[in-house]
């Protein structure tokens, strides 16, 4: 079933009776060429690109809950490629290019909205860092421009420009950045993979990874054993627990990051705006809700809910920077489990076990990586060589200290990212 304007018109005129399920609900087979653990954005994108780019279609995606029920459905939907360091820079550049063609490629409306991201700065040091970051982005081939305080005021007059501690001096704008409908991204990749013949198997928790003589041979699941030539992890916040089934310990701590949505309001925030003060980031959904968040709670957690101090901090930051929102009401908040690495950057690499691959460490930035993560991970699984855009996302950088990608410059240490 393909989507088109013509199809919408036809279905509208014939009682919408022709729509069919977007994907099958198959029984697991006893053996696959590739088993992907985790039916979130990254796992589904990996399956799609394995089938489409590499012709590997005997693939199962095993999901313990329902497709897209994890972090891909819990994030603040921001898409951007404004990284500074080599390694991250080319990877997220690759990702943004894939985002730009994704909807056409998948024949699926992911509501990709390149509304631009504006990173505000409040002092000279932050301005210098923003200029330097902008130059790095331009060198990578992506877009970046520095906006003056008056240019920012034209785009976002509702900001508090004269906050005593955090006056707004200007901002770094990337116009190709924006937001996408997070659930639709998972659904689009699921549908694309399913159409290529990939089996998407839900309610199928992996309970063990079979390793013989240093080589992976399959997985144990809630729905029985499944043999596999290759097994690929894409379990986000649960990566540590899944890796432990193969006897691996990862350089990952799982933390909670909270996100918030206000009641529906008339359009006010036209861009994604981030504040150097308090790490606050805001955007407005098409339903009118202000979508925002700030720091991690800064303690290990699998609870998928946070504590009040970070709620309070986030609200204080928001009201300080946008005083008008003090009258808006919070609709809901939630927490997601973040797989934090010591340097705050991800891992897409071989594991020490033959045929077992790692895709983890997305910290609080996995959503924007979704297309590239799937694309380069599929390349690694299919060819056993890293994709050109992901040569530096190595597991052994932590052991050797060589090639660490500490974007924030705080030191490659747990609890600092």
């Amino acid at each position, binding site marked *: 079933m393909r989507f088109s304007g013509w199809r919408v018109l036809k279905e509208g005129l014939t009682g919408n009776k022709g729509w069919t399920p977007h994907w099958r609900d198959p029984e697991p087979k006893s053996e696959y060429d590739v088993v992907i653990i985790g039916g979130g954005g990254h796992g589904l994108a990996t399956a799609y690109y394995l089938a489409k780019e590499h012709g590997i279609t005997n693939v199962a995606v095993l999901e313990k809950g329902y497709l897209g029920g994890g972090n891909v459905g819990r994030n603040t939907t921001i898409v951007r490629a404004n990284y500074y360091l080599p390694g991250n820079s080319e990877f997220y550049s690759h990702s943004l290019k894939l985002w730009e063609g994704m909807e056409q490629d998948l024949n699926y409306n992911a509501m990709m909205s390149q509304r631009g991201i504006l990173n505000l700065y409040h002092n000279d040091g932050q301005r210098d860092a923003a200029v330097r970051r902008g130059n790095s982005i331009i060198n990578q081939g992506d877009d970046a421009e520095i906006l003056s305080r008056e240019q920012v005021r034209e785009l976002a007059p509702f900001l508090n420009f004269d906050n005593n501690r955090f006056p707004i001096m200007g901002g770094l704008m990337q116009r190709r950045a924006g937001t996408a409908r997070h659930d639709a991204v998972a659904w689009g990749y699921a549908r694309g993979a399913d159409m290529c013949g990939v089996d998407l198997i839900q309610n199928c928790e992996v309970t063990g990874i079979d390793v013989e003589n240093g080589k992976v041979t399959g997985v144990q699941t809630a729905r029985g054993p499944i043999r596999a030539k290759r097994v690929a992890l894409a379990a986000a916040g*649960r990566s540590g627990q899944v890796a432990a089934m193969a006897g691996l310990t*990862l350089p990952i*701590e799982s933390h909670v990051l909270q996100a918030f949505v206000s009641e529906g309001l008339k359009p006010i925030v036209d861009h994604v705006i981030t504040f150097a003060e308090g790490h606050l980031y805001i955007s407005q959904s098409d339903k009118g809700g202000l979508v925002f968040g700030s720091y991690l709670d800064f*303690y*290990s*957690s699998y609870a998928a809910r946070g504590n009040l101090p970070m709620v309070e901090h986030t609200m204080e930051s928001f009201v300080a920077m946008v005083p008008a929102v003090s009258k808006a009401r919070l609709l809901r908040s939630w927490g997601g489990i973040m797989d934090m690495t*010591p340097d705050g950057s991800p891992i897409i690499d071989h594991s020490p076990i033959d045929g077992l691959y790692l895709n983890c460490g997305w910290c609080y930035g996995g959503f924007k990586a979704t297309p590239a993560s799937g694309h380069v991970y599929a390349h690694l699984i299919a060819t056993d060589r890293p994709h050109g855009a992901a040569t530096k996302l190595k597991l052994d950088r*932590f052991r050797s200290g060589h090639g660490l990608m500490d974007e924030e410059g705080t030191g490659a*240490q747990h*609890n600092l990212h």
Partner: protein
Amino acid sequence: MRITCPLCGERDRREFYYKGAALVRPAEGADLDAWHEYVNLRENPAGPLDELWYHEMGCNSWLKVTRDTATHEILDVQLASEAGLGGET
């Protein structure tokens, strides 16, 4: 989340700084693998975990807190100085 400091009593989470898993520090001459394990690798359990917290806005004590990462329940708190985490020197 509230933590009962052995010296100050029950206090709000805001008073504490989180360091991470409470691990025994390797000896000075330990090999690279031992340091890699200490600095980077984490068991990262979904359940009880021994952690180091610092009572930054209280008595400035380092605490070993046993906390369930799946529920945030605090199971035990003791002074780190009495928990034998210093390792060999």
